[in-house]
């Protein structure tokens, strides 16, 4: 049918608003020129809307599309990948609005808009972002509604109001589907978000790297223990083992990422008491996970590596939850692979930090026992004038020599690095371990919060009959760091010095701290129960609801719940008229009266007004005076303005008269 196929003007207004709200959160991830292109085409569209400019010509459109394709290619180097795809999608969205004129194009534009909204959730799923995304989705829906309304004379909020009402009615269905829908494994491999430049642990460590990282107050992960939380000094979250050293920078060895079971089909079982915990990791865009020693992989998406670390099977591009088990008393790698042994012993080049090497060789001659040698080095750190500081002096070529014997001011990486170097020079297998140490317990949730400023580096040495043993030279220098965290160790002036407004700097302000912990508790709940609602959590919740999880019960919940929700909405919408058109009371009474007259042989002809009908009946049956009265009553109820009391009174009268025996 020929309907006016043009987009109504008020719909365009809603569309433009929706576009602003949709693209805003993407802006930081997009190349700058897309924002420019967006601003210009939005301006252009507004001018077309106001009738000042005309739509772009075909040539201009082709040029714009080609230019933006080239731009995306230039910025990302490829069209494959999540970021270029989203950039492409948003450029389409921007230019489509510029040329959109017909209703069909508006549909395309709006559906594209919903898709752009979805892509936001492939990057971020935090509570704040989700709450924000309600705005563009509502605006898009308002635009969809406005598309089908007549142009109002003045601006009206009505489309948004209807969108709000409909959305509120749709939310119960969303919850039901969210609860029940099975979370299937990915159907095929998709390009994951790249993450860009993010602060976080990297797989190489030079002097000052961890000090830099500890300037950030970003959350790294939350850990929830099923039992009591271990003491802070025991919370060594191992992330990376760095065993390649070039004289300045420590690097991870890719070989260590191999799954343990691939090399040793049946590794020796861990012994001692086990700690059970679950970690909710923020996206790191890396594969390594953080685990307490000695870990055991529990979640299927994780694996245990050759050097007893936990590794995710895919890079963690989204909030990621994994269960793990730790055996703090257990020993590991009692047999050291000879090949590994060589690499752990490597000290790159003889002309590398000669003073430290000479010192180590001297120690070797003094101590035949490895353990005694290590104890001596630890005591050396404790007894000499070493300082723990976030702002160490810059070190030159032989960084370890300078640190050990000259500056003696450093952060954990300096201590770990020189400690391991000395041990290796003395012939003891040793390596640097990077990760996080400690964490803050949120009393509201009982979870441990680990921030970037908890980043730490320590050492592991291999001893005959004990395997790898943890040593933390930082503990010798600054025991407060290990026992109560960085803030106590460096003082309020150095702690988060580059982030003066961070809420973490104001932990002493009681009410602020309470709010911070409350917000964290909400975010934890969100991550724990909503963002990670799948597998175990889903099974657990459904079991609580249904008692037993089987397809029949799930189907019944889905169908029954869905029907109930739809029925409730229908009741709200149609009320008592749900089962047929319900007439006003006076019309019902009058219809009853007409039906009685019809039975007496005086049916009311179609389209005869009540007054005329009454006169017609009275001409033939003058004795039925009540007909006149009923008609007067009905007409007053239908056409006159009455107060509620008058109306009530007249209705009662009409009801009584319509039952009158006079003409029956």
């Amino acid at each position, binding site marked *: 049918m020929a309907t006016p196929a043009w987009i109504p003007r008020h719909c365009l207004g809603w569309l433009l608003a929706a576009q602003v709200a949709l693209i805003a959160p993407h802006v930081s991830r997009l190349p700058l020129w897309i924002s420019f292109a967006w601003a210009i085409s939005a301006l252009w569209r507004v001018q077309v809307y106001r009738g000042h400019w005309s739509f772009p010509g075909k040539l201009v459109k082709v040029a714009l599309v080609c230019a933006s394709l080239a731009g995306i290619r230039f910025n990302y180097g490829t069209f494959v990948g999540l970021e270029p795809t989203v950039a492409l999608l948003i450029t389409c969205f921007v230019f489509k609005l510029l040329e959109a004129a017909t209703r069909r194009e508006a*549909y395309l534009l709006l559906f594209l808009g919903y898709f752009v909204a979805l892509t936001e*959730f492939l990057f971020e799923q935090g509570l704040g972002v989700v709450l924000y995304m309600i705005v563009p989705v509502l605006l898009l829906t308002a635009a969809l509604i406005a598309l089908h309304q007549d142009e109002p004379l003045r601006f009206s909020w009505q489309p948004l109001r209807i969108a709000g009402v409909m959305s509120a009615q*749709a939310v119960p269905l969303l919850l039901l589907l969210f609860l029940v829908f099975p979370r299937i494994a990915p159907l095929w491999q998709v390009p994951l978000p790249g993450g860009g430049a993010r602060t976080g642990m990297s797989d190489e460590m030079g002097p000052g790297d961890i000090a830099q990282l500890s300037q950030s107050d970003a959350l790294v992960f939350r850990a929830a223990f099923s039992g009591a939380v271990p003491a802070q000094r025991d919370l060594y979250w191992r992330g990376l083992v760095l065993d390649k050293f070039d004289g300045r920078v420590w690097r991870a060895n890719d070989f260590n990422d191999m799954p343990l079971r691939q090399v040793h089909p049946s590794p020796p079982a861990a012994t001692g008491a086990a700690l059970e915990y679950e970690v909710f990791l923020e996206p790191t865009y890396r594969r390594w996970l953080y685990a307490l020693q000695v870990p055991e992989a529990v979640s299927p998406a994780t694996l245990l590596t050759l050097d007893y670390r936990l590794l995710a099977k895919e890079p963690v591009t989204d909030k990621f939850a994994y269960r793990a088990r730790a055996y703090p008393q257990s020993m590991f790698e009692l047999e050291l692979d000879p090949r590994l042994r060589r690499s752990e012993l490597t000290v790159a080049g003889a002309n590398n930090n000669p003073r430290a090497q000479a010192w180590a060789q001297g120690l070797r001659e003094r101590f035949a026992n490895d353990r005694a040698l290590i104890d001596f080095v630890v005591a050396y750190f404790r007894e000499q004038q070493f300082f723990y500081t976030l702002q160490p002096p810059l070190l030159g070529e032989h960084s370890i020599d300078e640190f050990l014997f000259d500056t003696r001011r450093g952060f954990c990486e300096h201590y770990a690095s020189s400690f391991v170097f000395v041990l290796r020079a003395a012939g003891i297998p040793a390596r640097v371990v990077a990760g996080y140490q400690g964490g803050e317990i949120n009393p509201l949730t009982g979870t441990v919060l680990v921030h970037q400023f908890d980043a730490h580096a320590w050492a592991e040495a291999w001893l005959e009959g004990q395997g790898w043993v943890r040593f933390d030279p930082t503990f010798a220098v600054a025991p407060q760091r290990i026992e109560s965290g960085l803030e106590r160790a460096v003082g309020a002036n150095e702690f988060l010095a580059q982030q003066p407004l961070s809420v973490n700097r104001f932990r002493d302000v009681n009410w602020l701290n309470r709010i911070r912990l409350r917000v964290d508790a909400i975010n934890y709940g969100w991550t724990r129960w909503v963002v*990670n609602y799948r597998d175990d959590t889903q099974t657990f919740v459904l079991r609580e609801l249904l008692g037993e999880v089987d397809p029949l019960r799930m189907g019944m919940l889905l169908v029954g719940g869905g029907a109930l929700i739809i029925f409730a909405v229908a009741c709200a919408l149609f009320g008592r008229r749900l089962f047929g*058109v319900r007439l006003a009371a006076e019309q019902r009474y009058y219809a009853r009266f007409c039906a009685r007259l019809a039975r007496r042989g005086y049916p009311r002809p179609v389209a005869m007004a009540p007054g005329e009908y009454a006169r017609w009946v009275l001409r033939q049956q003058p004795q039925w005076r009540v007909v006149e009265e009923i008609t007067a009553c009905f007409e007053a109820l239908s056409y006159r303005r009455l107060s509620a009391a008058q109306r009530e009174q007249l209705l009662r009268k009409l009801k009584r008269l319509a039952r009158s025996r006079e003409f029956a």
Partner: protein
Amino acid sequence: MSTLARPSWWQQRFERWLKRRIPAARSVTLDQRRIFIFPSRAGLFFLGALAVMLIAAINYQSNMAFALVFFLFGLFVIAILHTYGNLSGLCIEALRGYPTFAGEMAEFELQLRRTRERGYHAIELGWPGEPSARLSLLDAQVATVKLFHRSRRRGWLRPGRLLVQTVYPLGLLRAWTWIDLDIAALVYPRPLLGPRPLSEGGTAEHGTRALKKGSDDFYGFRAYRSGDNLRHVLWRAYAKGQPLQSKQFAETQVQSHWLSYDACAGDREHRLGVLCHWVLELERKGEVFGLHLPGATLALDSGGEQRERALRMLALFQSARGL
């Protein structure tokens, strides 16, 4: 719908079922017995887009993406009720159909009335293949809508089932109904040029009648009546702001014409067309005329009412679709 020459078996069944379910009436109030609902083309496209979004949510394992897809699906489901609600309770009443000449568009007037508080948005009405009308019923209780239907043959034009549909609010679903409104318009024959079909001795019979309105001698004014010859309107007085007046002329020799079916040449429809033309022509000149059809006669008279009577006779003459 009825364009096919021979409706197939199932079409007849459907027609019968529809007739039982939605019988013809002067006035129809839409309720759940009459309203059908199905995704529109945009709605099917939307569902397709949702499927793609669901795959994205699965592949990226993003629970919030799942939530958005479920929300949009919920919106779609809720829209079923809202779209249905935008037709339910609407009362459509047939007012009248205006006469027209075959081949032209017949105009029908329908009245839309709401039986509840909430308004109706963007209701489309139309007969299949004919231009449709779109209107909303927001502030007013009642709205009148004009619809047009092509007329092909003379006689009564019954436009058949009227499609009433809406896609409001989201455009993803289409709710519609086919209502059989008891409405008809009279279609006059198409006027055809031809020689004046006068029956013999027509002028003498009533020639001696007393003064008859004509166009020879002016004898007075009277208030304008519709159908008066526009050339006799006293425009000067009208320009001064006085009401429309017509000049009256006395006529001593009455010009009365008998138009006769038998005096025409050609087949039945052609003859009726020629007669129609002359009825219009004579009335325009303000002359007196009568009509002889086989089996029916219209007495001599003049003016607009006479024209209507004559045209009606011509329209319904031996019409299969007559009353």
